[in-house]
């Protein structure tokens, strides 16, 4: 009996944890947090969004997976910009002491700034640019800027950690700069780069909610904020669970990719 229980640990313990949290949730909504909908009510009110996940009844009234999809597209765009800019910056930081001395202080200062602070600046940035969707550009600006740093810093660390032995091989064989970069430096740095990419993706997803809230774009975060303003609190929790679940899946996927490159 004891043996079987231990074997089911992986299933029973998380269920127990979830049950405890749900219990606290019931208790809170019944006592001190009067506005908080209890789990049953949350489920009944969220049903239409979950059972018809791709439905579209209006711009701000869509199935939860449809909203997720819109958010993911925005994240994918911002995240791509972050990688395209962040990786070369990381390489420069790793390669050049002068570059590091010039830009590291400013990076260290910009890095901890919250997305909530960047977004208004993004709006200002693109306000006078013609032919663009200002709110989208501001959101992309914020996502890219906030999620870039782990990629930048990890790439820089990876470049600095390239073993002297590998560089000596390149020097002895007189490899061209291009070949040294593509055949030696990039492969040697890849494991570090992918750790950066994974952390960056986590941040990009974190930022999306803030970006959508402030710009009012349709998506999980935008939906959450709209429902809050409309005094419909049930779907806030649905959004939070969705955001958490998607973030978790993204992180798992990236760590699979990351592990592939670890052996390199």
């Amino acid at each position, binding site marked *: 009996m004891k043996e079987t229980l231990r074997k089911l640990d992986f299933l029973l313990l998380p269920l127990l944890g979830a049950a405890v949290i749900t219990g606290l949730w019931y208790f809170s909504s019944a006592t001190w947090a009067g506005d908080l909908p209890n789990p049953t009510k949350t489920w009944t009110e969220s049903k239409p969004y979950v059972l018809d996940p791709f439905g579209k009844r209006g711009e701000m009234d869509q199935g939860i997976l449809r909203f997720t999809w819109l958010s993911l597209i925005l994240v994918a765009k911002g995240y791509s910009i972050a990688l395209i800019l962040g990786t070369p910056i990381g390489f420069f930081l790793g390669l050049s002491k002068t570059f590091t001395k010039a830009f590291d202080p400013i990076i260290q200062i910009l890095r901890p700034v919250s997305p909530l602070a960047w977004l208004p600046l993004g709006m200002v940035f693109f306000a006078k640019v013609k032919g663009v969707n200002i709110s989208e550009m501001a959101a992309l600006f914020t996502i890219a800027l906030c999620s870039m740093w782990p990629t930048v810093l990890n790439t820089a660390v990876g470049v600095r950690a390239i073993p002297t032995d590998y560089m000596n091989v390149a*020097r*002895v064989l*007189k490899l061209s700069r291009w070949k040294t970069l593509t*055949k030696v430096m990039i492969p*040697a740095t890849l494991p570090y780069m992918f750790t950066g990419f994974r952390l960056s993706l986590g941040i990009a997803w974190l930022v999306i909610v803030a970006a959508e809230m402030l710009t009012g774009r349709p998506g999980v975060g935008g939906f959450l904020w709209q429902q809050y303003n409309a005094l419909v609190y049930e779907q806030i929790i649905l959004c939070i669970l969705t955001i958490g679940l998607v973030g978790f899946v993204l992180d798992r996927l990236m760590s699979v990719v990351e592990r592939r490159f670890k052996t390199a």
Partner: protein
Amino acid sequence: MNDYLEIFNLKKVYPSAKGPQTIVQGFNLKLRKGEFVTVIGHSGCGKSTVLMMVAGLSTITDGGIVLAGKELDGPGPDRGIVFQSPSLLPWMTAKENVMLGIEQVFFTAEKAEREQIAEYYLTVVGLADSMHKKPGELSQGMRQRVGIARAFALKPKMLLLDEPFGMLDSLTRYELQAVLLELWRKNKITAMMVTHDVDEALYLSDRIVCMTDGPEAGIGEIIEVNFPRPRDRKAVMEHPDYYQLRARLIEFLEVHAHKKKPAALAPVSATAVAITA
């Protein structure tokens, strides 16, 4: 006339916390074409520093090195180097590692021809069946075989070996010494090796250069090794001169290598006095 590699008055000074420190000084050595010379000395005496200066991977403070009538300036594929750790690129297969160098040296050759060169040398070192494996799948000894194949495949003017078998167990070391000796003999290549293994030096070399301890290390003694070639380990060890030469080398390492030590220590004790005073 016959000198192929000439090292003139080589000097190496490293900056250190206590000011510049002279590692090697007044190092003069000439190698004939096709000669196998071993540099022996205690760990940290600067023998690897000398080799790395010949390789061009370490800058020369003073003096000069001439290879085949041309003064050396920086590293290049005309010197095949076998490092102590094989220094293979772990994301490439054994063959790709060897090909990387071949593509640099034989860039005019057809791709098939270049592949043939890589396959030939990998086969000669005994890796015919493992050339498509990555270094992570190879044993330490096999990795060093790739390192040797990579150096020879460049058809270099010279071979530089930096304690190439130092990290191997003795059985593997014996095997690889034989592989190296065979390749050296067939390719008639000039070789300079650094080691602290007396038997290895005797088995492989034409001459053994004994270095004194650093700082300011230099050449203490040069010993001619005239065992007949091609050499067989057993025959070498049974040669009447073997134990006499071995005893001479060990005596050098145990007694004479340190002879500069007291002089080098003197300034240190002088500062100690100054501090107490």
